[in-house]
């Protein structure tokens, strides 16, 4: 803001300490309850669970224990599938809301599309269980109509975890992609049409590239939220295959092993940071 300097000068001299008095509580809170815990976690990850003393064994365990390593592989696979599916499902949907729905209904259509966003997160995963269980809605419908004889194993599978995640992220990505499409000036489309491009070419060569930054921001958000989530895999996936957050919680819940849980959390954060750096080119746009 350009007028900051002026308003600063307009302050009485006695008020020089005021700006710091305003920002210090928030900064202090962040330092005390966000930065300091993070440092504590860093230290903890370098100590032995029993007896204390500094060690790198928590980190080396991750690389040598195949089941820990597998949790990360599972997490990355699930997150990649979820992100891809969510973008593929949400993009046409957002496009239809932005282009095919009449202007005055758009706000309502969008609000309806994100309404289930506001159910409790724990409850939303549980409701998918109602749909996917052995005697749940889908299996009852399939056996009832005679399509299959035996109920399918849908709950407690990777498919269930992915379904629960995609359900959540389709709503999120619809929001971000819709906003992105609405920001496009209609003149791009007109210009492409004037130059003789058909609808398909216009979409592939004009609309899609212009909305790519928005997609990347949404995909990154999906990645971060998905890979760090404990609830959905725990409720829907069961314990058949572990994802990283489940592994972290297991160290705390069953074994009280804070150092190992800290090390695994830090590894998880490192992966997110790498993903951030990989998309930084697109993500910077939001910062400006």
């Amino acid at each position, binding site marked *: 803001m350009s007028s900051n300097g002026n308003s600063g000068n307009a302050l009485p001299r006695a008020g020089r300490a005021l700006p710091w008095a305003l920002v210090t509580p928030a900064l202090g809170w962040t330092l005390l309850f*966000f930065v300091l815990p993070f440092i504590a976690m860093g230290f903890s990850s370098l100590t032995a669970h029993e007896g204390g003393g500094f060690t790198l064994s928590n980190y080396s365990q991750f690389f040598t224990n195949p089941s820990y390593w597998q949790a990360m592989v599972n997490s990355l696979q699930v997150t990649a599938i979820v992100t891809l599916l969510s973008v593929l499902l949400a993009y046409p949907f957002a496009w239809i809301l932005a282009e095919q729905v009449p202007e005055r209904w758009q706000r309502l259509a969008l609000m309806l599309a994100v309404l289930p966003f506001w159910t409790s997160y724990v409850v939303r995963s549980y409701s998918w269980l109602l749909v996917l269980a052995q005697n749940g*809605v889908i299996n009852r419908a399939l056996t009832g109509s005679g399509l299959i004889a035996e109920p399918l194993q849908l709950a407690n599978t990777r498919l269930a975890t992915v379904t629960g995640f995609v359900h959540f992220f389709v709503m999120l990505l619809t929001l971000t992609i819709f906003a992105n499409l609405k920001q496009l000036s209609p003149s791009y489309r007109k210009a492409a049409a004037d130059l003789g491009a058909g609808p398909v070419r216009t979409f592939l060569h004009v609309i899609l590239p212009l909305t790519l930054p928005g997609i990347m921001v949404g995909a990154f958000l999906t990645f971060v939220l998905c890979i760090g989530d404990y609830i959905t895999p725990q409720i829907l996936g069961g314990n058949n295959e572990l994802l990283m957050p489940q592994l972290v919680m297991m160290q705390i819940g069953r074994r009280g092993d804070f150092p190992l849980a800290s090390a695994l959390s830090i590894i998880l954060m490192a992966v997110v940071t790498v993903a951030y750096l990989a998309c930084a080119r697109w993500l910077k746009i939001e910062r400006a």
Partner: protein
Amino acid sequence: MRQLVRVVSWLYALTVYGFIFLPVVVLVLFSLQATSFPIPPFTGPSLRWYDAVLSDVRLTSALVNSLLVASISSAAAVTLGFLSAWGFARFVLPGSGLLRGLITLPLTVSYLIIGMGLLVLFNWAGVPKSLLAAGIGHVVINLPLCFAIIYSQMGDHQINIERAARDLGAPEWKVLLLITVPVMAPAIFAGFFLSMTFSWDEFVISFLLTRFDTTLPVEIWNLLRSGLNPKTNAVGSLVFAVSIVLVVLFELTLLRRRKT
């Protein structure tokens, strides 16, 4: 061709809406189930499970705890966020960009890791698990949100009103309380209600940092161990209703801002 695109679009949109609404409809429908299992065929309608939820002391006290933690932690987050937003928007501070970045940093870290960090810190400092500890975590996740909302709404026209008040001899605290707070009220309420919805629904931090007294999402989690149960449907539907009320309040405060 155009007609075909239209028909395919409608079918696609309806399918996605169906996918999005399926679990919610199933949840609410089977909360009205008369028998003991929330599975087809539907045997309702009956309000007995709502009755069971409202007479369950653990659930109702968890509900009160959730509302308490959500309102107090949101009030704290919005106060800290507002003061710092005002400070950064109105005064030139050295390293301002960096400090603003620091305040918004928690937005990029998953709740699980924020909760873990606090758990390790409190464990070392000997702070017992409690609703207060969880509330502290909720302020950590909501403060950046409140700050970002309020900071983005600090416009230039408000500076002039504040300056006029100062010229007329108002001390800083009067400018803040009588001018800035009322002018910024829509953004402040929007930040408050949005924080409420997040804190009200937050699970992992509360799960890690509370023990005996706990919040509703954690209590629902405990309920899930008993398998599919219409009581869970009923409490879930109630949580949905409260969230919708909060979101409507958020929308209304935001819409009021747009009109002025």
